């Protein structure tokens, strides 16, 4: 998180960051069976469409497909070793260095299959200040991520609104100063 110490100018941040895009990043590895198995295990999903190659081959998909909601997993580098560039949303200057996701939406256009190589590009769509329960001057960052396959086809478009907030002790004096 790019926390700004001292004066924070939301209009300057908006002017500089809205519309900014990443390059197209490529997923570290192809779509593989085992991460799908772990993802399904997380939510006790034993659906053979995602876990059993023999069964999946008999369906209209012709093989295992990625559970749509985990598609972006394969367009990233994973948690470790860290990628060179932090996620774009974490580069936007904010008041605090704590973050939570609030609103998530996805459009799924076509499936990802075992062996596919996925890529992603993220764009900052909006940055604004709005109160949350965690911080009266939270910074909201809305971003759009497009996922491509190895043929350059768009397979999914995601939107995420993340809130960056301060720790309570960081704005306690501000509340006292306002008589809040």
């Amino acid at each position, binding site marked *: 998180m790019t926390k700004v110490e001292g004066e924070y100018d939301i209009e300057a941040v908006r002017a500089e960051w809205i519309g900014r895009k990443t390059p197209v990043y490529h997923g570290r590895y192809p779509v593989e069976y085992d*991460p799908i198995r*772990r*993802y*399904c*295990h*997380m*939510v*006790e*999903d*034993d*659906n*053979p*469409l*995602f*876990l*059993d190659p023999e*069964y999946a081959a008999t*369906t*209209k*998909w012709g093989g295992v497909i990625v*559970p*749509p*909601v*985990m598609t972006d*997993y394969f367009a990233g580098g*994973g*948690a*470790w070793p860290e990628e060179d560039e932090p996620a774009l949303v974490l580069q936007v200057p904010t008041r605090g260095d*704590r*973050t*939570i*996701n*609030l*609103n*998530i*939406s*996805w*459009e*799924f256009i076509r*499936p990802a299959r075992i062996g596919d190589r996925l890529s992603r590009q993220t764009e900052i769509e909006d940055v604004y200040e709005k109160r949350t329960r*965690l*911080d009266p001057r939270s910074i909201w960052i809305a971003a759009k991520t497009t996922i491509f396959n190895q043929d350059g086809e768009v397979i999914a478009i995601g*939107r995420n609104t993340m809130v960056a*907030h301060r*720790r*309570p002790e960081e704005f306690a004096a501000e509340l006292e100063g306002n008589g809040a």
Partner: protein
Amino acid sequence: MSGEPRAQRYWDDVSTGDDLEGFTFTLGWTELAKQVSGSQDFHKVHHDFEFAREGGHETIFYNTGFTRGCLGRLLTDWMGPEGWIKTFGFQMRRMNTPGDVMSVKGRVRGKAEGDDPETGVVNLEIWIENTREGVTTPGTATVLLPRRAQSTS
């Protein structure tokens, strides 16, 4: 071993007001470990109690990947193998935290024919609730289901 193939659901048989079957988890330490394993989200706010409290949270809360995976399973269980999630969205308004009994649910809000003669469109309300806070994660989804006459399986 995986489970049994999901039954195919057909657009023709769906009615507004139908409930999705859903499922329930009691969120314990094993679920805490599985959310990190499955999502590979190592953000400390989801597993480090002290870090979470310093940030103004009462405790840690289960992550976005886990939340998204639960709602995704709700839909793919219900649709059957030929269904497709077209759009999907949710808001994380309250937390699901250790000890919570959490249920994942949905309801049909409407249906339409759509552009493709082989499939029909179903609009759904989906959500996660827990016994401590009620609905924590409201959402919506639009899915495509095969029509009975044109289905290939």
